[in-house]
């Protein structure tokens, strides 16, 4: 804000004001919210690059079952459908939470975040049960290269969701204690980016791992 007023004060020697709206004008450094959000966007993209390495590993090791069970023998699509529904709904409520934060409605923000948290925990519970079930059936990560890659890829996504839930609870506490200050708003923006990105990665997971894995 301060820089834009300054720029207007010093006149406009290069007639950049006429470019306004064309996206070419410059009025000093971008607002901190934009810089922070952009930096976090870069982090998310690098996280996706990391996930793509796990996806590549999984795709290469898909056939290396060492005589053990394949995906078709193991995966329950019903579970995956429930997990997908939970995560998609949590992405939606997370969007509602960021709208509530924009409108500075503490009550709706806390409600939407609490629902997001509950849905995320439901997702994690189903995933944990699936993993425990696989290990109990002798299909743990040590069984074959295929299962190692499977547990690494899906488990890494699960770890991200766990970290996201910790972050979510932190944001609820920070809004409770400090209100919607500008820095808290920036953290909420980054959290929402993170949570939506997790859902995008889950789309790739359920398609590549579960649907393609159990197709004939």
């Amino acid at each position: 804000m301060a820089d834009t007023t300054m720029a207007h004060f010093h006149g406009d020697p290069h007639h950049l004001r006429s470019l306004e709206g064309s996206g070419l004008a410059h009025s000093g450094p971008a607002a901190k919210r934009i810089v922070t959000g952009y930096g976090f966007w870069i982090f998310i993209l690098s996280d996706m690059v990391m996930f793509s390495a796990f996806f590549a590993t999984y795709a290469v090791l898909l056939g290396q079952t060492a005589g053990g069970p394949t995906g078709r023998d193991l995966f329950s699509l019903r579970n995956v459908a429930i997990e997908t529904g939970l995560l998609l709904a949590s992405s939606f409520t997370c969007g509602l939470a960021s709208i509530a934060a924009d409108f500075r409605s503490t009550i709706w923000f806390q409600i939407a975040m609490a629902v997001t948290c509950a849905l995320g925990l439901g997702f994690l519970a189903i995933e944990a049960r699936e993993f425990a079930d696989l290990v109990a059936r002798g299909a743990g990560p040590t069984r074959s290269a295929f299962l190692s890659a499977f547990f690494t890829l899906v488990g890494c996504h699960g770890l991200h969701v766990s970290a996201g839930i910790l972050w979510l609870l932190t944001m609820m506490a920070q809004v409770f204690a400090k209100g919607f200050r500008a820095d808290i708003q920036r953290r909420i923006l980054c959290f929402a980016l993170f949570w939506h990105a997790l859902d995008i990665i889950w789309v790739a997971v359920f398609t590549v791992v579960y649907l393609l894995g159990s197709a004939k």
Partner: protein
Amino acid sequence: MSSGYDESTDNIDVAPGDEHLEAGSLAQRVGGYLVGLGLAILLTATSFFVAGTDLVWQPSIPVALVVLAIAQMGVHLVFFLHISTGADNTNNVLALAFGVLIVILLIGGSLWIMANLNHNMMPMDQLMQMQR
């Protein structure tokens, strides 16, 4: 916009995840998320249906699933992450394009190299016999 952050009065760029400053009222913004949710549910349901059905020509199923997944990622990007084609979004889109390039190179390259190796490598049992 009736809401506001104290800082983002600059209309040249918009932070990734933020809607455009003229995004509109509460109802319009919630409506945007509802449209995204509806499209995502539709695409997900189609994916699960296609994976389990016998109605579709079987060899086309993997391609269909991949296309549906990419479409759903696009829906998430547009309706949830608010990545748009507007001039205020150029930086975000360019970063995304670079990310997608690296992801394609990484996955495509790995699969290509490993398939090539598999093709050129002697079968394991023959290799074992030679070492005996």
